């Protein structure tokens, strides 16, 4: 979707100050949102999670702190998949406590995380492009989730590395399967993306999926 999240190249935002020692969480609720997002048992994966954040209306997105976007997303998806109802969220005390499951503990934290990434349907896929190929990012504007940033669409670059076979986020986020395919590191001259504003020496590298690309002729 052509959302506010796709902000590469926008003007007008102030550059933030870098704080070397700033804490990860500024309020206790941020810690809660972070931790619950990682461990909650849920039927959706990372791609749909990202789409959930991107679906926040643009005016709200810009005025909502980072972890509050996660909170909004968690609420929306938990309701969509029937894990909770809006009425239950408005009145948590009304929800009955189920018999307690056994608590988990592990030295390997990855064992405690809920599954974030879907299983690839297949690790094999035909690569349409090779290192050195000149490619154009298709000028497509899907209404659903996509990881082809707007600033690259219609632009020509060179395949610089084949990153192997990955889940295709555009379909996976929409419940349409993992559609395994190659992903490539594509190098763009900064001037191809930004015209004379850019320095002639500079480059931007973007990871782009096979379906986003076509051969430059």
């Amino acid at each position, binding site marked *: 979707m052509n959302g506010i999240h796709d*902000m590469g190249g926008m003007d007008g935002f102030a550059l933030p100050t870098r704080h070397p020692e700033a804490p990860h969480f500024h309020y206790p609720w941020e810690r809660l949102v*972070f931790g619950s997002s990682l461990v909650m048992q849920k039927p959706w994966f990372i791609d749909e999670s990202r789409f959930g954040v991107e679906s926040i209306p643009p005016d709200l997105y810009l005025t909502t702190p980072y972890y509050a976007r996660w909170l909004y997303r968690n609420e929306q998806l938990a309701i969509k998949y029937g894990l909770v109802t809006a009425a239950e969220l408005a009145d948590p005390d009304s929800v009955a406590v189920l018999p307690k499951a056994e608590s988990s503990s592990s030295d390997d934290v990855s064992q405690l995380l809920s599954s974030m990434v879907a299983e690839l349907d297949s690790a094999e896929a035909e690569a349409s492009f090779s290192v050195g190929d000149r490619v154009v990012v298709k000028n497509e504007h899907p209404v659903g989730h996509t990881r082809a940033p707007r600033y690259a669409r219609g632009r020509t670059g060179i395949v610089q590395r084949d990153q192997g076979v990955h889940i295709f986020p555009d379909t996976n986020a929409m419940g349409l399967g993992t559609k395994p395919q190659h992903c490539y590191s594509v190098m763009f001259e900064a001037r191809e993306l930004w015209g004379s504003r850019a320095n002639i020496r500079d480059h931007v590298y973007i990871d782009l999926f096979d379906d986003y690309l076509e051969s430059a002729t």
Partner: protein
Amino acid sequence: MSNKKVSRRRFLAETSAAASAATVAGAGIPSQAAAADEIVQSDYSLRAKALVSVLTKKNLIDPAAMDQVIDYYENKVGPHIGARLVARSWVDPAFRQRLLDDAGPAAAELGIPGTLNSAFRAVANTPAVHNLVVCTLCSCYPWPLLGLPPTWYKDAGYRARAVIDPRDVLSEFGLQLEQDVEVRVWDSTAEIRYIVIPERPAGTEGMTEEALAALVTRDSMIGAERAKAPA
């Protein structure tokens, strides 16, 4: 009880909107803005607690696991891990090559967990090339190597500007590049996570790997600054 809770939330939302409007309208004295922020934070807090409470009652959240995960990401994993990689790459050319070829297995050699089940790429700064990492679409970041991303990395100002004005961004961050240096910006749009190997500072010959690692800052591994000079 339930009515009280709902009405409190509505009260908070309405008060927050009114307070924000007052600030925007120019009445903006700091105490009003602070009071409005407190109300907004209180609303987020109520909502976060409500969701966690309901999911916990339904056994969809294990609170013990959640506490461990929070502690791990808040206190255990962090830039000190990436710094070990960088320091090793400064003293061991063969390791540096393996790191640049495929960063995940190279990191696993040092016993760093979580580096084999996703893809990592290390890009090295040289006198001729400066690398800068961004995620314009969200906040993708190499958690197993650097921990959670800093707030500035997730900010709209950085995400919007890093790809179009990297030299200005670096200059405002305090890093002046020579005109003949090439800037490479890496937009993390897929599942490959990037770490910058900063240049080894001058005057560090003969330093131990551990001492070298102490010079490697979090932001130098994003490309936002250089590694520290030795004291």
